């Protein structure tokens, strides 16, 4: 009875306060993102330029956060595992490698027609797409979920190794080496509106498509056999969900590089309040992820460091202990019979 009351009270409180809190956090993070920085907004000559640069940066942070958190919700549903993250499919590493390749190859091949602002995101898309193509190719041969996970793991390992090789090759050129390392650590500081405009449709379409698959993903929570018996064609759902998550991840990496823990922590933290059904959790996670990454980006400017602390470092520093705390709380609830 107590459990029931606690659960019902939490659900009721969640339903009442979740969205005001999420939207409040997003507005607060956005305001801080626009107002906080090394340069002063009081100078009327600089204000317009600074606000334009910071708003592009804010948009990039929101896009990356929303995409990774929404992707996390879908992947966790797809694998029926709240500890899964979008990187499990290997597309994060693929997109990241694509971005790094674009950075390195552009000066080597003399690709000056497109600016790095467009080349890097396009590299991310191609990298993520290539990784997805391998994954889907294998899914045609077998529908085993374990094969999907192992393939994602192998692809990630392969791409990370190639990324490491590229990083060491790029060290010959100091500025290129620095750019490659900065990209792999994640960040939105140099992102302009052109990149945002390129990634925004991917994230928007990806998020809406994932929301559309929400009911099907809800059925998969009961396992494949039950889902099939309830009228679900499991294989297409799995293929499309993997595709749209990859699109989201490619969009996120294109604007933010490697930003860790967002897809893992945000859905996990919101699930007790928003519920587990995908059509409720996904929008909440998208807004929560946007607010979280925007706030972390503000922290990159405030933490004591030479220049800015990389965004991926800040999300990791916050995400890892928060995630550990959530895990311990869930474990305690399990032991208490909650």
């Amino acid at each position: 009875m107590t459990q029931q009351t606690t659960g019902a009270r939490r659900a009721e409180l969640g339903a009442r306060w979740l969205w005001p809190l999420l939207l409040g956090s997003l507005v607060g993070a956005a305001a801080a993102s626009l107002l906080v920085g090394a340069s002063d907004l009081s100078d009327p000559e600089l204000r317009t330029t600074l606000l334009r640069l910071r708003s592009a940066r804010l948009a990039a942070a929101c896009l990356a956060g929303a995409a990774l958190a929404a992707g996390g919700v879908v992947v966790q549903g797809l694998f029926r595992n709240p500890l899964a993250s979008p990187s499990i499919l290997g597309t994060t590493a693929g997109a990241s490698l694509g971005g790094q390749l674009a950075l390195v190859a552009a000066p080597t091949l003399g690709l000056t027609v497109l600016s790095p602002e467009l080349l890097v995101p396009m590299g991310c898309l191609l990298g993520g797409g290539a990784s997805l193509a391998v994954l889907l190719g294998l899914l045609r041969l077998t529908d085993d979920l374990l094969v999907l996970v192992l393939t994602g793991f192998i692809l990630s390992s392969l791409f990370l190794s190639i990324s490491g090789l590229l990083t060491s090759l790029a060290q010959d050129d100091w500025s290129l080496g620095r750019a490659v390392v900065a990209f792999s650590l994640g960040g939105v500081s140099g992102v302009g509106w052109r990149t945002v405009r390129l990634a925004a449709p991917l994230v928007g379409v990806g998020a809406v498509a994932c929301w559309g698959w929400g009911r099907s993903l809800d059925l998969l929570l009961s396992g494949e056999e039950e889902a099939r018996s309830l009228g679900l064609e499991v294989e297409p759902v799995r293929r499309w969900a993997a595709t749209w998550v990859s699109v989201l991840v490619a969009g996120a990496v294109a604007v933010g590089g490697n930003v860790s823990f967002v897809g893992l922590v945000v859905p996990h933290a919101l699930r007790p309040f928003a519920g587990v059904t995908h059509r409720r959790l996904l929008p909440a996670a998208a807004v929560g992820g946007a607010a979280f990454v925007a706030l972390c980006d503000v922290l990159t400017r405030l933490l004591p460091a030479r220049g800015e602390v990389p965004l991926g470092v800040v999300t990791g520093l916050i995400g890892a202990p928060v995630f550990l705390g959530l895990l311990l709380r869930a474990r305690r609830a399990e032991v208490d019979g909650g």
Partner: protein
Amino acid sequence: MVDLRASGVTLRRRGRVVLRAVDLHARAGRLTAILGPNGAGKSSLLRCLGALLPFEGQVRAGDAEVRRMDARRRARTLAFVPQRSELRAALGVREVVAQGRFAHGGGGHEAIERALEEAGATALAGRRFTALSVGEQQRVLLARALATEAPVLLLDEPTAALDVHHALKTFALLQRLAAAGRTLVTVVHDLAFARRFADDALLLAEGEVVCAGAVEEVVAPGPVGEVYGVAMQEAAEVRFEELTP
């Protein structure tokens, strides 16, 4: 009213024959029990009937071959109730029952409430599925199957985790559902329950049909002795009845 007919159902898994040329006729308005010792292939046969496993042979629900139906039509025709759900996420009971409406494109508030009531799960509706006892979860899974409004129900040992009181209630409910015109096929472990509540039965041993027909002919000393290696004494029956409050 939909009859379910299986003919020549053969199932191979990892090179082993699990079912060999099984025929079954489950009639509308009757409760058909699938019986047999452990490893006889009872649950596998039930899954073949629901097209949840790939098999050779034919299974027809009415005029339609179940594997030729699209997934949603099949779910509106045959509802499957597993022994235990794999659901570990914190879904509410009403949300779980609403999954039964997926094949109808959602909605169906009245059907959900009716299913909860029929399965005796209305009092559980405000709770979380994972917080329920195994027996309560079983009632919710039955409600989900009823919410599909499928004329054929396939149940995998629906009373395996239930005490005698809840087992009696469940079989009484299954009898009522059959009497209302549904076709019920259930895997049963307890021969006494099968004899008392089922109309027809099919006895499997090592993936082959040993005996099929009216339950009195199947759960009889001959076939039971042959398959289980036990002597069946009909006179020694201990009978439980539900107490009326």
